[in-house]
């Protein structure tokens, strides 16, 4: 157990930070720990968490996915358009749009793995292209309201539990399995640590890279559809905030932006921290501007701790 703690110090710290934050928030706003408030916090965090799942994998592999906002937004808008408020079309629309998100990821992954385009540029380009295409498609006009079924997935409850929280738990379990128990996870960490060593060790580097972007496309598209259910409608720009929060959640969760380390379990804590902060600030009577300042400070602090650990490891290496 202590070995586990030592190896995953940053993840443990992220959870410790989350708990402290919860307690502090409860101090300032006594209603915060109420069941209903926790429930809504978890629901909001789930959207960040689901988007950040793909982002986590991409970052562990040494890349970054900037196409998240408009993959999310595209899925949301196209779903609303295709369903026209009806439930039945969802049965084929959802798989179709998940495949669409995966396809965008595939394009990103192929560009990065086979054509050597830097991830920042590749995903930036797909992002603006999608943005333009969706704008052309909608002409900027609003879309029909979300089907009831998708609303159930986003805001519904099963035995008092928010459905989306259950979905998030299932996805967390799947991601953990993938990272900790599957060959894919081993390949991914090796790839992110050193692409050359991974290649020389027989790791299928291109396939692994592409798969991370595909998963990122899938989770972004999925989150887009759920978010439409949550807001009742799809609108332009609904994905914009998720670029920052998905990367921030990964960073706060202890992953190195250079790749090779981190875990989705850390990202889950990161998503929770970001969302709790959103709840804390109104209690303190602070503006949304202040929230951004706090976000920035929290990122700086967590990555500094991560860097210190690295420095600590370095001295240990030297002292032996």
């Amino acid at each position, binding site marked *: 157990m202590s070995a586990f703690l030592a190896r995953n110090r940053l993840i443990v710290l992220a959870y410790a930070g989350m708990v402290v934050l919860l307690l502090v928030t409860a101090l300032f706003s006594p209603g915060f720990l109420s069941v209903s408030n926790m429930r809504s916090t978890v629901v909001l965090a789930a959207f960040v968490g689901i988007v950040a799942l793909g982002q986590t994998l991409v970052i562990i592999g040494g890349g970054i996915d900037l196409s998240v906002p408009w993959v999310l937004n595209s899925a949301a808008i196209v779903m609303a358009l295709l369903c026209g408020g009806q439930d039945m079309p969802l049965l084929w629309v959802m798989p179709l749009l998940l495949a669409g998100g995966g396809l965008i990821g595939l394009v990103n992954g192929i560009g990065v793995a086979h054509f050597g385009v830097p991830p920042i540029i590749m995903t930036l380009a797909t992002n603006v292209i999608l943005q333009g295409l969706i704008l052309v498609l909608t002409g900027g006009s609003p879309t029909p309201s979300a089907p009831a079924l998708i609303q159930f997935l986003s805001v519904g409850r099963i035995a008092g539990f928010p459905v989306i929280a259950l979905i998030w738990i299932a996805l967390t379990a799947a991601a953990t399995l993938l990272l900790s128990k599957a060959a894919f996870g081993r390949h991914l960490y090796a790839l992110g640590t050193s692409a050359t*060593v991974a290649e020389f060790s*027989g790791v299928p580097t291109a396939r692994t890279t592409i798969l991370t972007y595909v998963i990122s496309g899938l989770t972004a598209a999925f989150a887009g559809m759920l978010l439409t259910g949550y807001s009742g409608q799809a609108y332009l720009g609904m994905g914009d905030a998720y670029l920052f929060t998905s990367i921030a959640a990964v960073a706060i969760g202890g992953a190195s932006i250079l790749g090779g380390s981190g875990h989705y379990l850390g990202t889950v804590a990161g998503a929770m921290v970001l969302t709790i902060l959103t709840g804390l600030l109104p209690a303190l009577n602070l503006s949304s501007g202040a929230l951004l300042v706090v976000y920035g400070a929290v990122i700086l602090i967590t990555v500094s701790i991560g860097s210190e650990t690295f420095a600590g490891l370095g001295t240990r290496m030297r002292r032996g």
Partner: protein
Amino acid sequence: MDLVTVTGLSKRYGGIVALSDATFSARAGEVHALLGENGAGKSTFIQILSGAVQHDAGAIMVDGRDYRPANPDGAQARGIAAVFQELSLIPDLTVEQNIWFRREPLTPLRTVRRAELRRRTLALLEKYDFPPLRPDQELRRLTLAERQIVEIAKGLAKEPRILILDEATSALPAREAEWLLKLTRQLAAEGRLVIFISHRMAEVRAIADRLTIFRNGRTVAAHEAGAVSDEEIVTQMIGRHLDRLYPERVATATDRIALKVTGLSSGSRLSGVDFALREGEVLGVGGLQGHGQRELFQALFGATRASGRLELWGKPASIGNPRQALTGRDGIALVPEDRRGQGLLLTKSVRENLTLSVIGRFSRRGFLSRQKEAELVREMVGFLRIKADTPEQAAGTLSGGNQQKVIFGKMLLTEARVLLLYDPTRGVDVGTKGEIFQLMRDLAAKGYAILFHSSDMPELVHVADRVLVMRNGRVAATLEGERISEAEILRAAMLQREAA
């Protein structure tokens, strides 16, 4: 009086002692050779002297004053400059920008005076009779040899009183190497001290006034060059008799061909290599550096594009990438040249490194069995006697020898029975070297087929059953039995060079 005096100099990197209690002294106006095996502490010593690394303990006196540079600038301020192997050059700057980097002549607008920069460059190149260089060419366009010459020019441009040359001749063609030796004498005659590091005894013999020998981070001897024989020097460098390092060579090769290579070509570096490697054989690959050995190993492993026919254990094979090479009992495994850049995930555990190539061996439908993995790791750590606190220790914290053992273990866990070992003893301590040679013979006895390259010719002579000598991307000769000797390898490597 001595210009430089070093006493009790020590430096550790993690668990590795790079220097312990080293001493050194040298006079102005002499060429002082520094000798020692790889890992003897020479490079750490000159890195400290040049300000790139700071020592843990000990004292350095230059001109009778204490000397402890915090960085290369500090060294330069005391008149010390080092010429490393193309370490301090900037690929995207031109030759002249590199030579005068950070010391450029300036205009009143604080910009570089380009005409003056050119004038100074040409004057410097002329003064020391440099081989032709184009001052306005970007460094990344130059060959390795030309870069080395630029590095030398950069060192000389600082007008140092002490110039350190680290293996400066190793990258140079013959004529340029001779120029450098002459230059070295010229600098000494000007009253400078030249500290000269080379593996080539003949060069040392040709120019050194005195020499200091390092072994295992310590100074073992200092001599006037005329007062010591080659044999004495070699014995002091190695510290024991050669024959104990190498295991007895028992012929274990069978008639079965493990790897047959026909017409293997790759770019301009490899043109039509043919050979056959037998089961149970250690086949050495020798020759002068840069004649296609690296490309041969990479091509066989699928890390470089190549054309030609391969047969593994009698069956035609096509290897497009390392993943294909490593797959199955008919696979090929490699101990790569660059241990830290190609072989090991330094920040990951010994366990993860060992099993990285064989994840399929302990996973089912893509999911891992940690228990099976632990068994494999335990087995390999025990078999190779890898010295690590736990298998969870980061590979980068191990000593060089143990890091190399992890790479061997990683290779042996694959089912491949054709092994490519590219300079496997480089930077490995003497004890582990012996273990590696013994392991190679043991593996051969078990029916593995081993292709073995070493930059150290005696290793080939003492360990290999046969030696392929490469020249200009081809196999120039195959030496067997009594004919395997350093002299024969060199002869085959250089014969007909005028014609080629």
